[in-house]
């Protein structure tokens, strides 16, 4: 349930940053499967997630977050 809600929240962030209002994410989505998700938008996506949840990622977490699954994992580990 919680994970689903987070999925919705980060989907919204992805949609704004990548300027693609119809974008749908699933656990397997990653920079290879989503064209606009390049290394530059990755920076903004992470910054926006930080801003949204009022957290600051550590570098080891940022290195992990290379897919939607891993992003959600990190957020869950954070107990959000």
């Amino acid at each position, binding site marked *: 349930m919680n994970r689903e809600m987070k999925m919705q929240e980060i989907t919204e962030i992805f949609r704004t940053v990548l*300027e693609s209002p119809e974008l749908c994410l699933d656990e397997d989505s990653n920079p290879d499967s989503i064209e606009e998700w390049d*290394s530059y938008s990755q*920076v903004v996506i992470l*910054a926006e997630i930080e801003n949204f949840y009022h957290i600051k990622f550590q570098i080891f977490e940022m290195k992990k977050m290379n897919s939607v699954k891993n992003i959600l994992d990190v957020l869950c580990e954070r107990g959000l």
Partner: protein
Amino acid sequence: MKELEYPFDAHEVLRERRKWKKALLENKKHYIKKRIAILGGSTTRELRELLEIFLLNQGIKAEFYESGYGRFWEEAVFDNSKLDAFLPEIVIIHTNIRNMVSFPMQKTQDVAVNEVYEFYHQMWESLEQKYGCMIIQNNFEYPIVRKYGNQDAVRTDGNVRFVNLLNERFYTYANAKSSFYICDIQYLSAVFGLDSWLDAAGWYMYKYAMSIQAMPLLAFHLSNIVKAALGKSKKALVLDLDNTLWGGVIGEEGENRIDLNPESAYGQIFLDFHKYLLTLKQRGILLTVSSKNDYETGLQGLKDPESILKPEDFQILKINWERKSSNIREIAKELNILEESLVFVDDNPAEREEVRQSGVAACVPEFSCAEEFVTHLERSGLFEVSDISADDLGRNAMYYAETERKKMRENFSDYKEYLKTLQMEAVIEKCSQKNVGRITQLVNKCNQFNVTTKRFTQAQMEEMQKDDSTWILYGSLKDKFGSNGIVTVLIAKLEGGICHIILWVMSCRVLKRDLEYAMLDALAEKCTEQNIQTIKGYYYPSGKNELVKDLYQSLGFEKVQEDSTGNTVWERNLKEGYRKQNDCICITKSEEE
């Protein structure tokens, strides 16, 4: 676009910038175009994208070049055919404390500071030589590591002291160079918070010099430097009175009951605002008032013994019951400046909204309380300075003289008669190294009397000044009421025996004074001396220069070409001689020599 003005939301900017960029490109028609190279000591793509939209919002459309990662120095100093082909007009050197690979350990600090300084200095000189461009260089923010804690700023081998000494060397260079600007990231990082600014993740993960959240702020400030250098800073303030220049409402509480009391917290806020406005006035920003009140009542407040600003500090006092928007229109007309050069400050959100809705182009900053006035105006960069000329410092006096002239004009029925009584004297000469600063400023500031709206950086102007086939003629004008300083500039290129007027601007303060005749007389004389028999003039409509649409016609030129966008080409033949057209202004020699 309101969202890109101070105080913008950095996150919103990062999130929405692509959408906003599209919107900006669709909206505006007349952009100043500039080629900007960003030479970075770190990743610069983010900064470039942000700078692009902030510049668009300031009316500047930039084309960018980015150096390879971290190769700022090499790309500037060594042969670089790509950059040569790009031919930058502005170079931004985006370096910061992260590029200070190591602080000196053994060497004495002065020697070490000198070494780093020389490294940068060599790069600036090389860029100037190759491109004659404007350069914007970051200074250095404070380092993360302090070897000696609090004593680091004091001890001769401290890191903090090192940064301070090095920055000081940068400033000395900047003071001596006209088209070299410092971007003060030391100040910005303090405003932002140094720890957040020097974000570890940003650097180690992406090699960003500073936190991505800080980049909108930096990009905004860079855009302000560029805007100011292109003469697009604001020129005047329109101020409300009640609860803006003093606490309370003057009519309601009795004339002596407004709060400008230096002993009260509220009174101090307004007195500090007075002091701030006075510093703006001293550097050439004009102050005016638009307030809903009876004239005498409103004036009473400014005559309050505690009031730091006095009635005579204001160019225009519109204290009446008119709508603010129509007062602002009037003020722009009377000062002869564009509405968009005005900033309107009013504590009342309803008045601000009225002005915004009215379509007046004045800038209307948003405030939630009086204590925000100073910080908001200051941080907004609306009045960013590029180069303060002697004319800026004397501008308020010049406008007073204009008011006196107006009074006199009203007493004359014959306009020529009036002009003659002004006892005008003009100096019309070629631009020299000494006044190229003021001349550049004027060229970039004028919108209305501006035939082609070409903009030039100071470096480009200096280049043209040295070039024999280009004439930069300037005119300064004085009369019995005072001096106006340099008020008109004409740039002509000689090509194939024809004199092409590529730019002609005149300050609106001196319109209808026959100075355009005197300028053409001087140009024709120079042409005759050089055996040039044709003068060509060009008019390109910019949306703001309707005023000079028929200038060349009125000067006896013939229209030889017109295209669908309204661009026109004019020609004047000198073969049959040239009869002087000015008979109101006495031409004198410059006093400098």
